């Protein structure tokens, strides 16, 4: 590939006070977002959280109810989609079935009257290693190949901003991991700004520089992947990105840089800097892989929190690690992921066990404990039924 063919830099994207209401429900509520040029940004959230709507607003396929959209500092809120410097990789790929792969990729170039559209299309196809299939129709390609053509068709236009709408959703796990790495390397090569929408936390964490977790039309938390994972600020983020053990109790005192929380009679220490709230009832948490499992009561030590004893209720082996469930009276179930350093489980079901963790690994959430939402995947039947109902109501209203 010729050096500098895609040299044009990406542009900043700015969303200011975006609201989007559909008949019957609000998809996006007061969204403010700034994505710096050249970054790989992921919008992560369960289906129905408004992430795809956000993407469609940026692409110009939907109009916001209120708010402004700026690309590279220019207000494009009222600019039609075909005049925006933005390209999308659709979830269904949306390749034109009546054109060859080459014509699909050249489509955008031809519309803008760019010289040598076919040469540039071949170049983009070489980037995704599919140039040898340029004469085929999309229907004659595999899912992964179609995905790459869709990517080439968008990238070839050198958009200021590339939008990816769950483009890996239709692929099987192995291919998905492979495509994740490929996407990431292409982004690094071409230096465009990527806005990637996904419901797969692992995908967002591995690919993006910055991840925004969205829930119910709002951004819950935004930051670098490590930061989001190690220091979640809400119960939703703590449970949507991996798993967390959450405990609720009143703050009884603070010493130095830490707060002490009373969890069912046990004093638990959390660093003040890692806690969002320092008074009254708070919810604190710790990741299951940060917990250490003990079969005897560990000695009291500074800088370590200990809960227990409890009974092991479940042991499940998952290759790299073993997952233990421990029922601790007054606290409920605590989950522990332990690396498999020895053959066989460290403890068996029914055994007595304690869990301990370094104080620095704990975190305190911002949720008001009484409203602390128990995370529920919105793929459950009740939510699906509710969404269907919203759609039906919307349709009835229109008719």
């Amino acid at each position, binding site marked *: 590939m010729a050096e500098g063919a895609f040299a044009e830099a990406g542009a900043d994207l700015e969303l200011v006070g975006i609201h989007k209401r559909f008949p019957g429900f609000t998809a996006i509520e007061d969204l403010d977002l700034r994505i710096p040029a050249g970054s790989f940004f992921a919008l992560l959230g369960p289906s129905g959280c408004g992430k795809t709507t956000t993407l469609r607003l940026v692409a110009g396929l939907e109009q916001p109810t209120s708010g402004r959209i700026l690309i590279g500092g220019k207000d494009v809120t009222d600019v039609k989609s*075909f005049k925006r410097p933005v390209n999308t990789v*659709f979830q269904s790929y949306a390749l034109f079935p009546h054109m060859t792969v080459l014509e699909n990729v050249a489509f955008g170039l031809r*519309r803008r009257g760019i010289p040598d559209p076919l040469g540039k299309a071949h170049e983009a196809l070489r980037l995704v290693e599919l140039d040898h299939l340029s004469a085929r129709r999309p229907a004659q390609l595999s899912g992964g190949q179609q995905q790459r053509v869709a990517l080439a068709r968008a990238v070839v236009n050198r958009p200021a901003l590339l939008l990816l709408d769950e483009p890996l959703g239709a692929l099987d796990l192995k291919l998905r991991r492979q495509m994740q790495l490929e996407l990431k390397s292409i982004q690094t090569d071409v230096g465009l700004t990527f806005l990637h929408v996904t419901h797969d936390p692992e995908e967002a964490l591995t690919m993006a520089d910055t991840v925004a977790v969205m829930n119910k039309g709002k951004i819950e938390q935004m930051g670098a992947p490590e930061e989001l994972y190690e220091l979640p600020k809400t119960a939703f983020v703590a449970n949507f990105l991996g798993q967390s053990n959450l405990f609720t109790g009143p703050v009884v005192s603070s010493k130095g840089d830490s707060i002490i929380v009373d969890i069912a009679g046990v004093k638990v220490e959390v660093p003040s800097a890692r806690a969002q709230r320092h008074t009254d009832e708070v919810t604190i948490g710790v990741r299951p892989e940060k917990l250490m499992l003990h079969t005897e009561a560990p000695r009291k030590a500074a800088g370590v929190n200990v809960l227990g004893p409890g009974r092991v209720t479940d042991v499940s082996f998952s290759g790299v690690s073993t997952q233990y469930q421990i029922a601790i009276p007054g606290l409920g179930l605590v989950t522990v992921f332990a690396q498999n350093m020895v053959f066989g489980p460290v403890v068996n079901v029914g055994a007595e066990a304690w869990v301990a963790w370094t104080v620095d690994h704990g975190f305190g959430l911002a949720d008001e404990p009484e409203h602390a939402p128990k995370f529920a995947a919105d793929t459950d039947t009740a939510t699906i039924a509710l969404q269907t109902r919203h759609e039906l109501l919307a349709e009835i209203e229109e008719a």
Partner: protein
Amino acid sequence: MKFSLGKWLLPLYSALALIFLLVPIAYTFVFSFNNSPKGKSNVQWAGFTFDKWLNVCDAQGVCEAFVTSIVVGVIATLIATALGTLMALALARYRFRARSAISLLLFLPMATPEVVLGAGLAAQFLTAGVPKGMVTIIIAHALFCLSFVVVTVKARVASLDPALEEAGRDLYGSPAQVFWKITFPLLLPGIIAAALLSFALSFDDFIITRFNNGGVTTFPIYVYTAAARGVPAEANVIASAVFLFALILVVVSQLSSAARRKRLAKLS
């Protein structure tokens, strides 16, 4: 020895049904070669000849009626297909007031008995003071073809992924470019099917035409009128030719799609 009745009954019944269906067509075809005397009815076999095929237009008015039918069919089809495609797009793509009412109303011409439709139209033309002739026939045909076009094209629009048009817009296609480069080519098979159907319907319509033709004679009207004093063999020739033409069309399209399937299978 076991004699299975079921084993023989189905093939026998099928053969009888096919013969029943094909006899009138075969009769028409065979009697197009009948050397019947000029002006006499074409009922008794009077020897084999190619004369009628070679001199089709000899019989009074046959060719004129045929040409009239073709002209009416082509114009009515063009009108019905153009309007029907636009209506199908509107009905399948957009939500607006009275959308379902319009869908229902479009279905009515298909459900109404042709006699009623023909008589109703004739009465309206009379009231409006429109003289009957070519124009009224074309209006009537476009009217009843329209419903069939809308239904056929609407099914095609419904099966079209809206994301394809969105992708077109996303890739800098103006609304007109998106329509002509993406929507139209993808709808084309449905539009062609609708046009063929509408031409076929127009070509063999008798009842509605009869109410609105004034003095103009289409091919079905000609055959009907001629039947009173004996249909000339030339009419058989035209009917057979139309039948053969349709048959060839079907065979060619089947062969070409089989060839395409084979090519696709080889590629992947």
